[in-house]
């Protein structure tokens, strides 16, 4: 089994499926209606999704969409992840920001075809912490950007993706 099985060919422009084309306009109008009458059975339905950020093909382009082009390196942004992953399909990454006033954390995998994998907004009551499993197509820098009081802070760590088993 290749280390990047299931994620090896990610990249290039995608063509929306007929199913997506059918559903998306319906969903858009649904969201509009729901927002208009301020009735939200599922909070997630009305939630934002940064299409440009997630569609960006470089970490720099994705960061631009977050207004975080020049983040300041900070040791208060802590990444807890293995330096070697035996399989790129599941790479556990734990992130915490000790920067006071942190309101969001963005996670980017530089070498992935679409580097931005997640953005987490924390409101009153939540700690600026998240643990997730990400796909790594190949060995890459993991970049974490925290936002606090309008400023952006960054930390990075390289994760090596290796081949674990027989490769048969």
């Amino acid at each position: 089994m290749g280390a990047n099985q299931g994620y090896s060919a990610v990249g290039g422009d995608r063509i929306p499926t007929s199913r997506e084309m059918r559903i998306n306009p319906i969903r858009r109008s649904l969201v509009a209606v729901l927002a208009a009458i301020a009735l939200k059975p599922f909070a997630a339905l009305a939630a934002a999704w940064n299409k440009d950020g997630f569609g960006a093909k470089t970490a720099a382009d994705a960061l631009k969409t977050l207004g975080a082009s020049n983040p300041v390196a900070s040791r208060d942004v802590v990444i807890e992840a293995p330096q070697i992953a035996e399989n790129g399909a599941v790479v556990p990454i734990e992130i915490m920001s000790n920067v006071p006033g942190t309101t969001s954390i963005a996670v980017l995998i530089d070498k992935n075809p679409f580097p931005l994998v997640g953005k987490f907004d924390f409101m009153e009551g939540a700690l600026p912490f998240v643990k997730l499993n990400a796909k790594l197509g190949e060995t890459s820098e993991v970049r974490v950007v925290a936002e606090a009081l309008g400023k952006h802070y960054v930390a990075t760590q390289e994760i090596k993706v290796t081949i674990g088993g027989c490769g048969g």
Partner: protein
Amino acid sequence: MAGPMKMRATLSGGVTDVRVLMTHPMETGQRKDPDGKLVPLHFIQNVTLKVNGKTVVESQISQGISRNPVFTFRIKGGAKGDRIEVSWIDNHGETNQTETAVA
């Protein structure tokens, strides 16, 4: 049609750990099925965490998150019995949600 979710919320040392498991293929749109056909892009886009009805974490995620996503979030304080809810919506408009009480 969405597969099961599972969640656990545990209070320890003044912090509540919320660990949530979701069944979802998180298809990248680039994987081929055994017949050589591309499997369409299909992934969760938003995950929302609420405590006693109030949203505390809004997440936007991509197809770069692993299949069958597992997230851990942390809540300041919290008390046994607090109601924790997690819901998701994917790019097809499918949704699922689960809830539990802090233990």
